[in-house]
């Protein structure tokens, strides 16, 4: 039985590696995910039916409980995951991540009593419990922020120092519990649990909502670490492999995300910008801007040869993905070539625009990546920027003092006409002005993206 179980565990471990590898490539990604799920199933079923030690007391009742719990979890998880709108994906990932963290925390909370006086086991238990708990409460805050229920970053005075003090306290407390476990009241672990919850909240709450994808990725690798500690405790290979893999891959992924946004992880965590409240550097600009009327814009678009649409965060906020697809189809009918220019960090999560536009059934071929579309702007008649700002800000190329300096951008100023749709002159995620709007070739088309584009579509139809 032990042998068979270990083989199940080997299958699980290997599928995690192979699956994760395949997920890194667009062509194999979906299959990779399924392979991971398959290995997970093997590991879970193996554990239920084959895991037997001198401590286990398997019984029919327990099996019913376990399968009952799995059934409940599967039903809720499956339905939520299937039902939720595409644009709500990040908060859902955050929520599921929090559940994993809570699971790790509960394991630590129950195992504590059985391992009093065994510092090695206790250090795994306490570490897994604390990290899992932080991941849990942090993820819940991240969820609330992303779903808009907690939209402003809340910053206590001196929050960075405060957080570090709380963290230090947790570490000291944890070490004390591990070393002096014998004689301490069992409830002490619940106190540690409570403090860890508080820390998770304190850690996440000052960070701006827009930085949440990075934070979720970080908390994700925390949960991986918590799972790995569980693996140490039980000398369980799939928990170890899966946990360490996600811990290290997740850390690298977090850094890669930061890099794509041209930010450092510390500036995300300690909030250099991102909530809009911190002062952004970079020169402030003045100049004159031009407006364009919907009727003029309709004519301009209608008689263009080639139009490129640059979608950004505002498109997602306004939920204008359907109307933009309508506009695109309309123009195509009139013989205009229309493409979408996809900046890698447009929106608030990587791939945000792809997911958003896929939802409204825009053809995949029409979505062109930054590197491929940039040379095409030269031959473009009209660039229509919808709710994007930072990703078309020329300061990234020209102004070394700008916080986004060095980020590659969509070079829309090479096109003949630039039309920008947004509600006002206010800044985007990076909180900085955009010189593009003052470009003589640029006209502003103010208004909420959904409303404005609906009018535009109606206007074009009258032509």
């Amino acid at each position: 039985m032990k042998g068979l179980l270990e083989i199940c565990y080997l299958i699980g471990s290997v599928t995690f590696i192979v699956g994760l590898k395949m997920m890194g490539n667009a062509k194999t990604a979906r299959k990779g995910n399924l392979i991971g799920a398959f290995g997970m199933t093997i590991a879970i079923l193996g554990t239920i039916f084959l895991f037997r030690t001198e401590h286990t007391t398997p019984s029919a009742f327990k099996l019913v409980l376990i399968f009952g719990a799995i059934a409940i979890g599967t039903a809720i998880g499956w339905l939520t995951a299937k039902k939720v709108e595409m644009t709500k994906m990040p908060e859902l990932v955050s929520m599921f991540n929090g559940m994993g963290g809570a699971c790790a925390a509960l394991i630590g909370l129950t195992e504590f009593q059985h391992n009093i006086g065994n510092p090695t086991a206790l250090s795994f238990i306490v570490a897994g419990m604390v990290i899992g708990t932080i991941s849990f409460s942090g993820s819940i805050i991240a969820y609330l922020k992303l779903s808009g229920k907690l939209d402003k970053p809340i910053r206590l005075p001196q929050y960075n120092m405060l957080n570090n003090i709380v963290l230090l306290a947790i570490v000291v407390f944890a070490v004390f519990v591990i070393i002096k476990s014998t004689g301490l009241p069992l409830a002490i672990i619940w106190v540690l649990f409570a403090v860890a919850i508080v820390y998770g909240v304190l850690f996440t709450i000052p960070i701006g909502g827009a930085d949440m994808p990075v934070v979720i990725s970080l908390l994700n690798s925390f949960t991986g670490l918590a799972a790995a500690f569980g693996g140490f405790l039980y000398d369980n290979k799939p928990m170890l492999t899966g946990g360490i893999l996600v811990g290290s891959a997740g850390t690298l992924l977090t850094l890669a995300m930061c890099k794509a946004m041209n930010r450092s992880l510390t500036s995300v965590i300690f909030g250099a910008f991102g909530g809009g409240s911190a002062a952004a550097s970079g020169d402030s600009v003045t100049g004159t801007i031009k407006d364009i009327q919907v009727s003029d814009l309709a004519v301009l678009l209608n008689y263009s040869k080639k139009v490129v649409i640059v979608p950004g965060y505002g498109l997602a906020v306004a939920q204008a993905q359907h109307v933009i697809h309508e506009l695109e189809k309309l123009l195509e009918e009139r013989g205009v070539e229309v493409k979408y220019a996809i900046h890698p960090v447009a929106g608030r999560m990587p791939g945000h625009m792809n997911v958003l536009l896929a939802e409204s059934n825009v053809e995949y071929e029409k979505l062109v990546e930054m590197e491929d579309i940039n040379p095409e702007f030269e031959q473009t008649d009209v660039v229509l920027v919808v709710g994007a700002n930072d990703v078309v800000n020329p300061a990234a190329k020209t102004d070394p003092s700008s916080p986004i300096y060095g980020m590659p951008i969509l070079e829309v100023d090479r096109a003949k006409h630039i039309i920008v749709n947004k509600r006002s002159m206010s800044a985007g995620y990076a909180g900085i002005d955009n010189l593009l709007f003052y470009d003589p070739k640029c006209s502003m088309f103010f208004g909420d993206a959904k409303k404005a584009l609906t009018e535009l579509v109606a206007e074009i139809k009258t032509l």
Partner: protein
Amino acid sequence: MEIFDFFVQNREMIYFIILAVFVGIEVIGGVPTVLHTPLMSGANAIHGVVIVGAIIVMLDTEPDNIFGLALGFLAVILGTLNVVGGFVVTDRMLEMFKKK
């Protein structure tokens, strides 16, 4: 020296950790930006393997320890949510990315 003893005793584990960390790092290297979100979500599903620990807790708990069983029950539910939700949401996301 104690550190040396620790090292000799846990040698296999140390190599295992180092190699697994390398694999984790290598596996992610050079992933295109658009795949970051599904990859994050897929990794999220994989750490749901913590559910294996929750099942072990259930199996290990004495049959008359109601509180322990209740905690384990809850842990299994949470772990399942992580696993099932994680894989399903990733699958849905990746469906969006596939070329038609």
